[in-house]
């Protein structure tokens, strides 16, 4: 019964508010002129005081982007984006970079406090005792603060904004940036390569187990501003790191663009666990406003016995276009993808994963739970591929969709390509609604309709929720409840 009480309490606690992170922080900001051209790319690069090689890299990407076409194969519909009607750079004004937390603008600190993100090192995440989390807070286009840097440095872990890494560790950035997601990978990744402003850089040296969870918190605050963050995580031989990502944005009538690129590099025996709770503003019930979330995430298991695990809880964004993937290059490497995608209102989600089996005896597991409610559309799109030489490859895929209401839709589009006889692939998918029996059972025990749905949905997602680090699992479970509010009755 404990679980039931918990769910019921969460749902009632949350009250009627639909999106509680929808506030706007009035903070003076430093913006680049609207629009996109080579000068803007130079402007961003100059703002970051970047070396020439970085600027050249950006310009090359920009020139490639100009001749690329926007992809239209995803099952999402939106008016054409005018890329010249956006701000590509916006940063809270400051005299010099803050040396310590005390120097950070108190208005910013209050914002993060409101969001429940601990920026003070002694603070802990609500409801979790004794857990330490290092946070990199990205506000519009820049990282405002990174906590626990020193403690991490003692262990040899580098955790800093990528704009800082370009200066402090150029050899590492040069060596790995763009090697997992090439500059010309796709339209949005190329755009990101040209105009990315900040994001996190993590380097875990050989044999080091990162002593705490690392986390980046993304916040879009300004109007008409796109956020283009870039994250690069490298786990050297035998290293381990768990990384969390969270995101929110104010409620606005306009659509805002978020086009991020995340690259993971995993060497021999290393493991990277990447978790996302995506809670961008989804737009209102009529589909006005909301974030367009066009993200390229890819991990490269370069070494033998390496492992990359993606866990995502997708509840926000007007449009989600996101396929965290694993390239299983090293022998015996393993890729995992656990996903909950919840769409309500008029949200559109087209998300999934790619598992590319290249090495021998590689294995992968995909668990995807899609829940659509309201008038939303929820698509799972995935690829599992075994290369000719990927002897002994193994994949298990399970995609379940749950439909709540008769105005929503759920789609499953898996591609399975096996070029090797000893590769064993299994794929299962189901689509169903919450059965009357389940509802009756819960209602009979005194739960009202909405509580019953939240309970059943939590059960439906349990396999994925279990994969989240504890600190996030609590938040994610609540989110599942909120996102479905108003979807029944």
């Amino acid at each position, binding site marked *: 019964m404990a679980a039931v009480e918990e769910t019921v309490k969460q749902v009632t606690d949350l009250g009627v508010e639909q999106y509680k992170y929808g506030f706007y922080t009035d903070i003076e900001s430093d913006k680049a002129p609207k629009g996109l051209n080579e000068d803007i790319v130079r402007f961003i690069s100059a703002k970051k005081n970047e070396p020439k090689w970085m600027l050249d890299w950006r310009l090359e990407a920009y020139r490639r982007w100009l001749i690329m076409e926007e992809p239209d*194969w995803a099952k999402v519909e939106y008016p054409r984006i005018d890329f010249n009607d956006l701000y590509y750079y916006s940063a809270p004004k400051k005299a010099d970079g803050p040396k310590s937390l005390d120097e950070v603008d108190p208005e910013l600190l209050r914002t993060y406090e409101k969001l429940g993100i601990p920026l003070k090192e002694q603070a802990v995440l609500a409801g979790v005792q004794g857990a330490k989390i290092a946070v990199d807070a990205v506000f519009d286009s820049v990282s405002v603060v990174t906590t626990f840097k020193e403690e991490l440095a003692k262990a040899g872990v580098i955790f800093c904004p990528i704009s800082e890494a370009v200066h402090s560790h150029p050899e590492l950035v040069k060596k790995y940036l763009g090697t997992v997601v090439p500059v010309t990978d796709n339209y949005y990744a190329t755009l990101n390569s040209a105009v990315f402003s900040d994001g996190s850089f993590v380097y875990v040296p050989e044999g080091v187990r990162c002593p705490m969870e690392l986390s980046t918190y993304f916040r879009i605050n300004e109007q008409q501003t796109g956020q283009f963050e870039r994250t690069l995580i490298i786990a050297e031989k035998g290293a381990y790191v768990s990384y969390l990502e969270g995101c929110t944005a104010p409620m606005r009538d306009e659509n805002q663009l978020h086009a991020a690129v995340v690259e993971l590099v995993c060497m021999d025996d290393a493991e990277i666990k990447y978790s996302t709770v995506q809670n961008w503003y989804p737009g209102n019930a009529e589909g006005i406003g909301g974030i367009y979330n066009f993200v390229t995430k890819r991990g490269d298991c370069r070494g033998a016995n390496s492992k990359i695990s993606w866990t995502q809880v997708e509840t926000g964004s007007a449009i989600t276009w996101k396929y965290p993937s694993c390239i299983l290059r090293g022998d015996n490497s393993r890729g995992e993808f656990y996903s909950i995608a919840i769409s309500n209102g008029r949200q559109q989600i087209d998300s999934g994963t790619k598992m590319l089996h290249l090495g021998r005896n590689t294995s992968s597991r995909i668990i995807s739970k899609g829940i659509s409610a309201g008038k939303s559309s929820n698509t799972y799109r995935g690829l599992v591929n075994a290369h*000719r030489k990927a002897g002994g490859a193994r994949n298990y895929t399970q995609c379940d*969709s749950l*439909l*709540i*209401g*008769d*105005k*929503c*839709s*759920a*789609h*499953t*589009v*898996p*591609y*399975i*390509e*096996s*070029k*090797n*006889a*000893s*590769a*064993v*692939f*299994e*794929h*299962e*998918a*189901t*689509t*169903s*609604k919450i059965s009357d029996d389940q509802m009756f059972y819960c209602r009979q025990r005194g739960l009202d309709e909405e509580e019953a749905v939240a309970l059943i949905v939590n059960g439906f997602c349990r396999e994925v929720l279990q994969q989240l680090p504890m600190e996030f699992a609590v938040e994610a479970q609540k989110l599942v409840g909120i996102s479905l509010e108003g979807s029944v009755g």
Partner: protein
Amino acid sequence: MTTEIRHTPAETAYIEALAAGPRSAGDAWFGAERAAARAQIADGGLPHRRMEAWRWTDLRSLIDDRFPPSEPAGAQQDITSDDVFKSVERWVVAFVDGAYRKDLSDLPDGSGGIELHSLEDVLDAPPGWLRDGLGQAYAQEGEPIVALNTAFVTQGLALRIGAGETPAKPIELRFFNSGSQPQTSLTRFAVVLEEGAALTLLESHTGAADRRYVANTVTEIHVHRNARLQHVRLQDESMAAVHLSNVHVTIEGEADYRGFTLSAGARVARNQVFACLAGEGGNVDVSGAYLLGGRQHCDTALLIDHAVAECTSDELFKCVMDDDARGIFQGKIIVRPDAQKTEGMQMSQGLLLSERAEFDSKPELEIFADDVRCTHGATSGDLDEDMMFYLRSRGIPENEAKGLLIAAFVGEAIEKVSNAGVREILNAYAVNRLNS
């Protein structure tokens, strides 16, 4: 900057045939569709891998020579040796090189409510029931290989079973291609089962060994209320041939369509089935098996459209690939907004017997109604070691054990055929093929 599209030899041959002017038969009422199809061929040519539905079957590169549309005069050919359904008592309608051959047919005697016309005879003045049924296939899908058929076809058959009638014997459509010259045989069929009628329709597709040709058939089927159609196809074309088949089925309320295809021949085969459940309580079952070896390439593309509520659909495909063969399965189930209480099941399984074989599948669900139960599954792998061990430990030699397992694997799909005589032929055919 625009790049000029360079046509392949095959496309050039088709475009030249277009220039030779429209074919007369059917232009009177089939004309608008035919004109659109001709424009599509002239414009788009053959389907290629940049088209999503053709990503794994690039006909532009797979059809590598000129195969102009056939002239309606089949070669003088003895086709008795290719009689695959010999042991089943049935009527036969024969087509050689894409031309209807009354002399080689064994036509129904008019009993059992069977109405049958050569398409050539009726295309200019079709009976009412045909006018409504034929020619819709292209308008609905705009499919490139249906366009090819629509643009050039003059031969085929219109078949109707009267209300409540059940013919005493199955009817076989028998196709033979001599390949005496490289050409595309085009045939078109309209099959209408009136309310409460029932029929077993067989198809056999064979050809002269190792001859090169393209066979293109389009079959439009309308199964009216309470009617039942069992449709069994055995495709064993020449190993150098290209086989392109399209089946369009409309299933009315409480009606039943059960289709099964055994794909054993052809260098390149593409089977497309478009089934629309248009009346409540309708059922559709589309299943098949592949037995591929050498460099064979076989692709099945299904579209099951649940347009109304309370229908069921079931698909099972068992695909065996040896040597360098490539098997492909693409199945899409659409459940429209009002199609509540739908049940849809789909399973595709690939068995790879060689290191170089390949199996690709794309089982797709597109669901707009909430009270539904749809599942799909796809697997791919080689023979199960435990099963092999079980058989070997009981003294069964390796090859025999392998044969047993493969026959059992394919047999699961063949089980779907309800006519016992036909089922036995298919099973024997599969075992025979596996042993050779």
